[in-house]
């Protein structure tokens, strides 16, 4: 009867007791190299890297950094700080509660990759290493030295298993490879940081505000990047720097604070997002901002359906389309078959209401299906919506949607006499059309966030999760599965309808092509789902971050061109392999996928709340 017998005899793990680094340099010189390299990196960014301004960003100036140099400067500063923290210098040590060495490795990696990427781009674009100025050489050598030094820092070797001499050659090779990988991963691993001391409330809130400000800064910078190289450098620097901050234990620390002050964080995140248009001098980036917000809001709505209730909906963008079409028809547009012009409140009610009805109509027959069947049927309905909209043009069907021309010249919204189409001046800042819509959309995002948060943490939200986990058991616990799923489906549809109303007015025109399953421009069903999965299922900030990334990456990396969908697929595969729980993992999911990494009884760090504020 006893099942809890002791663990079977496993081969004793080989454990190296003298910690050494990946590169055989003694610790002292290695640390000096890493830190000194960091300092030199900082200095190098104030020098000229190339002689001509032909390379974008103008890296020819002595005295202040420009373009990619700014990114290298930030990585260099992080490297230096974590290097100093590694020496145990008092002020710097508080920067790395989780240990400085792993953080140092990532920070120097950030500096190294960004610098070398820049150097190689310069040489490649301008035709040869001769185009590098001394500053470029200094930067290259400094970051290489810094990264080498960091790699040479000793670390606790992870357990590896001895190679069985009786194995075949290829087996032994695979085994060695696996051991090598384990050790390599171990070199970049950090222990979980100690639980932070409780600071006075106002200090914790200050930390949150600072983190949000950094988030806004990073986001604004990313949106404003003007050329491919800068955006790639930005992505690389941000990714590795974020990893460094995570390893240093800072992210975990901030997220304990945000978990303790959820409402402050939420308010702060929205304040930061609302500050975004004020950081812009013209409407150009506010446009991107609105589109990201629309995409992110719809993704968050989808997260209720997919992340909470576990209903794989592959036709979700149709609800956005229904909302947009319905709102456009009552907008007073000349191509609308109805000659009505409802005020904002009427339009949004019509948009959300139409989506709700459509959601119930589609949900009622399909939600009796489980799993894959539901996915296929929703995919079908999504396409049916698009085809119907395409064909209701008066020739192949009734004259409702104006066919592939769509409903065009949709007039701007007016809310309480405030014309969203006109420029306004607030506190000396000029707020253009897209910024107006940005604020309106932000309000809707806020509503969706609130709906998500409140419904998740309630009887109905628990029922959704229970259905997702085990439908049979959920039914046996008295949950009316069909009803509860229909509520999730209809709620998701309604929220998409809200966003659709605004979308119709932002884009002036509503056409069937905007609502395909897969397309190169988000939002479409595939990208929406990807935003949810990439960001983290069942979280609020996950889809927001995921949507921002999925919007920015294709729009910034113009050189991807036709390979965009291919790159997108590849990225998703890699993500699913290495981080199946998404960028911002739900507490449950993190445990689900990385249970083996945690000792039993360990409590994982709480969910990270929105950092970008977008």
């Amino acid at each position, binding site marked *: *009867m*006893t*099942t*809890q017998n002791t663990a079977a005899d496993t081969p004793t793990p080989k454990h190296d007791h003298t910690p050494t680094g990946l590169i055989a340099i003694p610790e002292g010189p290695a640390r000096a190299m890493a830190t000194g390299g960091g300092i030199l990196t900082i200095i190098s960014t104030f020098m000229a890297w190339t002689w001509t301004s032909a390379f974008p960003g103008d890296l020819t100036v002595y005295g202040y950094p420009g373009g990619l140099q700014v990114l290298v400067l930030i990585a260099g500063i992080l490297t230096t700080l974590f290097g100093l923290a590694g020496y145990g210098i008092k002020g710097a040590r508080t920067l790395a509660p989780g240990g400085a060495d792993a953080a140092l490795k990532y920070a120097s990696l950030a500096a190294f990759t960004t610098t070398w990427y820049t150097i190689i781009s310069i040489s490649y674009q301008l035709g040869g290493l001769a185009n590098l100025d001394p500053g470029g050489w200094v930067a290259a050598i400094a970051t290489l030295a810094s990264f080498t030094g960091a790699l040479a820092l000793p670390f606790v070797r992870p357990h590896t298993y001895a190679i069985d001499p009786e194995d075949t050659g290829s087996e032994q090779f695979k085994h060695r490879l696996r051991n090598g990988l384990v050790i390599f991963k171990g070199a970049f691993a950090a222990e979980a940081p100690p639980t932070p001391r409780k600071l006075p409330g106002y200090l914790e809130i200050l930390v949150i505000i600072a983190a949000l400000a950094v988030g806004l800064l990073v986001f604004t910078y990313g949106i404003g990047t003007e050329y491919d190289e800068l955006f790639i450098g930005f992505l690389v620097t941000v990714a590795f720097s974020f990893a460094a901050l995570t390893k240093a234990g800072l992210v975990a620390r901030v997220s304990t604070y945000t978990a303790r002050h959820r409402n402050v964080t939420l308010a702060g995140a929205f304040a930061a997002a609302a500050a975004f248009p004020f950081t812009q001098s013209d409407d150009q980036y506010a446009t991107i901002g609105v589109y990201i917000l629309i995409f992110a809001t719809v993704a968050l709505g989808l997260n209720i359906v997919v992340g909470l209730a576990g209903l794989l909906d592959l036709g979700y963008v149709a609800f956005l389309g229904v909302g947009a079409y319905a709102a456009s028809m009552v907008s007073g547009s000349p191509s609308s078959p109805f000659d009505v012009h409802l005020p904002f409140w009427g339009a949004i009610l019509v948009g959300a209401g139409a989506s709700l009805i459509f959601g119930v109509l589609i949900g009622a027959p399909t939600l009796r299906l489980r799993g894959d069947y539901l996915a296929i049927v929703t995919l079908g309905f999504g396409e049916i919506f698009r085809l119907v909209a395409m064909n209701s043009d008066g020739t192949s069907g009734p004259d409702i949607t104006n066919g592939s021309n769509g409903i065009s010249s949709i007039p701007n919204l007016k809310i309480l006499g405030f014309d969203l189409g006109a420029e306004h001046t607030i506190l000396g800042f000029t707020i253009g059309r897209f910024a107006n819509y940005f604020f309106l959309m932000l309000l809707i995002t806020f509503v969706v966030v*609130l*709906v998500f948060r*409140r*419904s998740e*943490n*309630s*009887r*109905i*939200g*628990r*029922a959704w*999760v*229970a259905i997702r*986990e*085990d439908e*049979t*058991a*959920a*039914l*046996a*616990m*008295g*949950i*009316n*599965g069909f009803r509860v799923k229909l*509520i999730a489906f209809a*709620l998701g549809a309604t929220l998409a309808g809200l966003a659709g109303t605004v979308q119709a007015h932002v884009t002036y025109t509503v056409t069937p092509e905007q609502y395909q399953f897969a397309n190169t421009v988000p939002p479409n069903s595939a990208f929406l789902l990807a935003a949810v999965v990439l960001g983290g299922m069942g979280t609020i900030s996950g889809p927001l971050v995921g949507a921002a990334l999925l919007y920015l990456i294709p729009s910034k990396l113009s050189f991807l061109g036709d390979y965009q969908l291919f790159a997108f697929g590849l990225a998703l595969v890699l993500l699913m392999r290495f981080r199946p729980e998404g960028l911002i993992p739900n507490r*449950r*999911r993190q*445990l*689900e996928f990385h*249970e083996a990494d945690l000792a*039993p*009884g360990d*409590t994982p760090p709480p969910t990270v709340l929105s950092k970008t504020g977008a």
Partner: protein
Amino acid sequence: MTTDTTTNKDRPAATPAGETVLDAKGVTMRFGGLTAVHSVDLTVNSGEIVGLIGPNGAGKTTFFNCLTGLYIPTEGEVRYKGTVLPSKSFKVTAAGVARTFQNIRLFANMTVLENVLVGRHTRTKEGLWSALLRGPGFHKAEAKSKARALELLEFVGLAEKADHLSRNLPYGEQRKLEIARALASEPGLLLLDEPTAGMNPQETRATEELVFAIRDMGIAVLVIEHDMRFIFNLCDRVAVLVQGEKLVEGDSETVQQDDRVIAAYLGEPFEGAPGSTEADATGNEENS
């Protein structure tokens, strides 16, 4: 069928003869050609612990599924406190019959407390609007549910683990959690499918105590188990299911001493035992 399988003529006087909680009549479940449960009658009275035993594949779990609306029986009728049970499993739970599963079916990625809160679903009313608007009624109901759930966790001894993910609990505690979750729906009848499977002897003892405590709360219990010591310690009445048919029913002694039961467990078809005729005379249609 010709064999009279029930032997309830000398029921011990100790059994509190309360009102009938569960009354299953002629329950038959066929899967295509296979008759997994054949014409089984069973009653459970209030204040009783009734055991359901039988060899592997006898149809015990299938019978449970018929009682709880997971399967719709091909024939027969199940009444709970006089009214016919609905054929949807969530309605059965709402009516007052709760169950656990043989292969544990917890909500693995929910915390222990959340699992029990889900069990409260039928006894709470708060819908989506209430969750979104968060009026005073919502907070009151949530607090009440939480208090009740913690009480139940205390009852099964899992209170300190309220915030753990249920998947991380050891096996025995997962079974206890399933019981707590079932109790959260405030049932009048609790069906336990092999509650001690995978437990060590101490845990089995503790589970016995738990089942007695549940009975003392006024909840009738119907329990499937292969551990005979457990069954005979616990049950007021035991029914034996063999190849889908009820072979014997009675108190522990009656059942223990019944030759047919012993034979069934040893795997020898006892002459006249149900199923033996089918096994012997393949192809011969029975005329009943």
